[in-house]
Structures are given as C-alpha cells and as structure tokens.
C-alpha cells in the first residue's frame, strides 16, 4: 500500500525491538512504551492475534451492495478481501487472492458481476468465492492438466465468517469469535442501534487518506476527551463541546476495548466558557463567528441524549455521529507507522433533499479536510514523528490516575488505560516486575 512519508520512514532499531524485548513498564496502567507504536514484530503479532483473531472486523455497509452480484473491494486488517452479495442475497467475504498463483483478481473498487475471473490464467470463482472453473483442467488431448484427484472444492478462496447488524457488515477469520452482539456487548449495541436502527441508509460518498501514525492511535484519540477542547477550538467556540457540558467517555465493561465519546450540545450556538476554563485553553477565540450559521443547525433525529457520539468498535470501526453528519470510518493498518482511513459518509433513504444538503454542509466538520478531522490527523502525525527516533521512549497517561473505563469528565485518560490492559492480555505482553 501507498506510504506518503517514505522519506522519513526509517525507524531506529531501539524503537523496533523484537517481541522478546517488548516488556511493558512496571507501572503498567500509567505508561505506554513507544514500541507499541513502532515495532514491526508487535505489528505482525497484532495482525495475527487481533485482525485475524477473535474479532469482528467492519467491512462494508449493505447499502453499498444492495443487489445480487454487487461487490466491493475491502480490507480485513491489512488483508485485501472482496465483499459480495450472492443470488440468494447473502453476503460473502473472501480474500482477494487467487488460489492458483496468488493474483489479486478483483481490481475494481466496486461493481456488479456474475462471477470473478482471475485475469492471469482465468480461474473463475462464484459469488461466494468457490472455485468454479479451471481452463484446460484435463489438459489438451488428455495431455497435461490437473491431476485426477484435483477437486475444485478444495481450492476456493479463503472465506471468512460474516455477520450483519442493521445494514452493517462484519467479517472474522476465527471460528471462535462469539456472535456479533455478544462481541459488541450490550451498551455498545444500544448506541450502535441509534444511527443503525434498521432504517435504510443512503451512501453519500467516500474519502480516503493515509495517516503516518500507528493504527491504535486512532482508537486512543477517540478515548481521549482531554484533547477535544484543547486541540479543537472549533468545537469549543461553536458550543459543540464545552468544558462542563454533559458528556461521557464510555468503555465496554467486559473488555474495555470498544467505547464511545459522547456529548450533548447546549441550545446556544456559541459557547459560554468560564473565565478560568478559557485561561486553560490557548486555542479558544471569543471573536470567531460564522457568517453562515446553517452549518451549526442541529436537527434532532434520534431518541438519544447525545448530539454527538463517536464510537470505536475494536479493532477497526468508528461510527461517527456529530450532530447530523454521519459516517463510518474503517481503520486499515499499514505497517507499524502508517494506517489508511476509509471514510464512508451516509444519510437515510427517506431524507428530504434539504436534509441531505444539511448533512453535506455539516460534513465540513469531518474527513481529511474537516474542521475537526484535519486537526486530529495532523496531531496523530506529530505523535508518530515524535516517538520514532527520540531518545526517550515512554508516554504518560496519568490523567485521572487510578481510574479505568468509563469517565464522566473530560480530563481523563481512564479509557486509554482500560484499552491497553485488554491489549496486553490479547498480545500476551509481559509487564516488568516492580523494583523492590
């Protein structure tokens, strides 16, 4: 995959240790060692244990492939897959790798087909990824060809298990992954069902960017309410998130791996910020005002206490609902120092044309050029650059120390702590002994 920062792409060996040397600092809850973000060995283990492990990976929205034969290219972790709707309307997900010599046979980003034919030697696969035809299977004039014991059934593509909920498609490599809803846990299912209630979605479009940062940073960013009022002056000035308003950073109770960050916008357009808080926020500006305030209109469309909710579902999905702009983002890991973000923006089939335009206007908040998205992207780049070749190698997560999981205040890193506790278990990472 494309890597934009190749010129600064050299990580020094100290930041790229083998697994055996990856030992977490003794004060495990309050520290994150740099190698978590920079080690190739750690990255490889993540692909095996997380993306190909017992996780449900987001792959598509059903609205992208409504009809039999519709397909799209996609990813599970960094592995290319095809997501297809078959004649019986079921959805299949299989690796985009020909069973013969490995060609990535599906080249178009999406389309409609009756079968997949590998361009190299024209082996063909049905819509579920089963091998259908091998040209000259019996040779020519009975000379050459496949051995008599060759069975098509044994040479299909690698197929994944698939689960859907209200129009969202997930895939897993593991037979042991629990059912989707159990995997998500109850509270996450409830929040997930707010934008995905079963109402038919309308896709509004895509964007894609490469972030020169480790993929886990994107999860952390959405478990880090501390940055929100400090980095995003836009959020604060326009009253979307103000210190002291009703908000929550939630971590699932079972593992602490999924979560959401939600807030309830007050009715005023512009924020009133206490003088003390203002002094803490250098980026705050009283004078910033909009000429076109339609941008900040909020149409209450859900039965939810939150006007904004950013949900992270481990390991690769973000469900974005910021007022009336909605989307899903898929994290595609791309080596330890890079990730690709695939954004799919949507509304609903029964939206009026004016509602669609409203969502598009509000879409200026998000994406690689969004008033909030741009800043997150740039900040994460700064973090990765800072840790790659520095002589120190530790990150401090001490805000709200002693707490793990859900927090109702913004000045907390409690959800980052719970995520890494879970992560250490799955990855089987040792914690250093406390010095006596």
């Amino acid at each position: 995959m494309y890597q934009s920062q190749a010129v600064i792409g050299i990580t020094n060996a100290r930041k790229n240790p083998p697994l055996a040397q990856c030992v977490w600092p003794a004060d495990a809850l309050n520290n994150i060692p740099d190698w978590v973000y920079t080690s190739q060995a750690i990255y490889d283990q993540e692909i095996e244990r997380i993306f190909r492990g017992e996780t449900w990976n987001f792959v598509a929205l059903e609205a992208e492939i409504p009809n039999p034969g519709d397909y799209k290219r996609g990813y599970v972790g960094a592995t290319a897959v095809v997501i297809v709707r078959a004649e019986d309307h079921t959805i299949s997900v299989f690796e985009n790798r020909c069973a013969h010599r490995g060609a990535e046979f599906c080249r178009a980003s999406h389309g409609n087909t009756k079968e997949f034919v590998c361009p190299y030697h024209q082996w063909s696969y049905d819509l579920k990824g089963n091998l259908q035809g091998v040209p000259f299977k019996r040779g020519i004039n009975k000379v050459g060809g496949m051995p008599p014991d060759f069975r098509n059934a044994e040479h299909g593509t690698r197929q994944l298990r698939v689960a859907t909920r209200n129009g969202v498609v997930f895939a897993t490599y593991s037979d042991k992954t629990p059912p989707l809803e159990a995997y998500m846990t109850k509270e996450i299912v409830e929040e997930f069902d707010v934008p995905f209630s079963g109402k038919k979605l309308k896709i509004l479009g895509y964007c894609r960017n490469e972030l020169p940062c480790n993929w886990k940073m994107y999860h952390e960013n959405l478990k880090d309410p501390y940055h929100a009022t400090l980095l995003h002056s836009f959020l604060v000035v326009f009253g979307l998130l103000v210190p002291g308003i009703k908000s929550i950073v939630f971590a699932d109770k079972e593992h602490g791996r999924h979560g959401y960050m939600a807030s309830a916008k007050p009715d005023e357009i512009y924020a009133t910020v206490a003088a003390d808080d203002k002094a803490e926020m250098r980026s705050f500006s009283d004078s910033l005002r909009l000429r076109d305030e339609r941008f900040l209109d909020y149409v209450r469309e859900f039965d939810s206490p939150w006007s904004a909710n950013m949900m992270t579902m481990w390991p690769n999905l973000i469900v974005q609902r910021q007022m009336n702009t909605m989307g899903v983002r898929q994290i595609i890991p791309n080596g330890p120092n890079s990730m690709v973000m695939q954004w799919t923006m949507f509304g609903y089939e029964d939206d009026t044309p004016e509602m669609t335009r409203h969502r598009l206007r509000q879409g200026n908040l998000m994406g690689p050029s969004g008033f909030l998205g741009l800043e997150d992207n740039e900040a994460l780049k700064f973090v990765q650059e800072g840790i790659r070749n520095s002589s120190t190698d530790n990150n401090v997560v001490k805000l709200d120390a002693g707490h793990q999981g859900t927090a109702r205040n913004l000045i907390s890193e409690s959800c980052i702590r719970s995520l890494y506790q879970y992560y250490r278990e799955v990855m089987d990472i040792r914690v250093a002994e406390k010095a006596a």
Partner: protein
Amino acid sequence: MKERLAYARTAVAPHRAAELRAEIDAFHAEYCAALDANDVERWPDFFSKEATYRITSRQNALLDMPVGLVYCEGLDMITDRALAVAHSQMFAPRHMLHVLGITRVLQETDRTISAQTPFILMQTLVEGPTTVHLAGIYHDHFVREGERLLIASREVVHDTEILDTALAYPV
C-alpha cells in the same frame, strides 16, 4: 459509469475560445498566486455571492455521490472556511504550489463560461520532500462582474485516491 466525466466537445469556436482562455488564465494566475502565498483570507474574493465550491474524488464524481472533502454553498460558507483555516485550525506549516494545465473552454452563454482546467497541487512540508498532494481537474462555471471573472461554481475533482494525511488549504 463513464458518462458523468466523459469527454465533452467544446461548443466554442477556436478564436473565441482562445480569447476566453486568456481571460481565465489571468484569473487563475491571481487565484493560485493568492493561495500559493498561503493568503487564504483572499480566497473568497474569487467567488460570486451564490457560488458553490466542492472538492471530491473522481470515484465520488463517477458514482454521483454528493459528498465533498470541502463542501460550500454560498460565499458566506466559503468565507467561513477561509477564516477557520486562517485562525482556528491546527496543522503543520506547509507550502502549496498549484501547477495548472491548459484550460478548455466548453461553453459560453450571455452570462456564463464553463471550462475545465487540469491541475497538480504540490505540497512541501517543513523538512519534507515536495510531493504531489492532489492531481485533478477544475470543473468551473464563471460569471462576469464588470471587467472581472468570478467563480459561480467550482468542482475540484481529484484523481488522487489516498490523500496524504489531510488537505489543509483550499485548492
């Protein structure tokens, strides 16, 4: 799939097209000079009151998807973006350089001129290489206001499938 961005023959006679091209070239020279000087607050000066501005990928354009990386309806929204970029957004310092190809004038009516201009947008970060940040085509409608041309609508359709980190400035 092809129709939406398919090749459309010009309806303007060659001599007239050359005149209009010279006028649009002069417009672009100023537009790009302002942006390449990072003087983003001048950017709204190039648009008419009702102007629309959208940046979107070729994929979206072909699928008839309406989203924009940047999506502005009207000069006020365009101005809001310029002010936000200039005063409220955090991003690494960078230099942008627009390199434009040859404008094709497609149509002329009493009031409007439609044209297409290919562009390459180069980006240089501090200590960074100069990279192609975006490549694509401006799909424009211009109106006249006295002696000046102004953009009535600009669709920036980019070929670039994976954007490097973020797009901070307008294109």
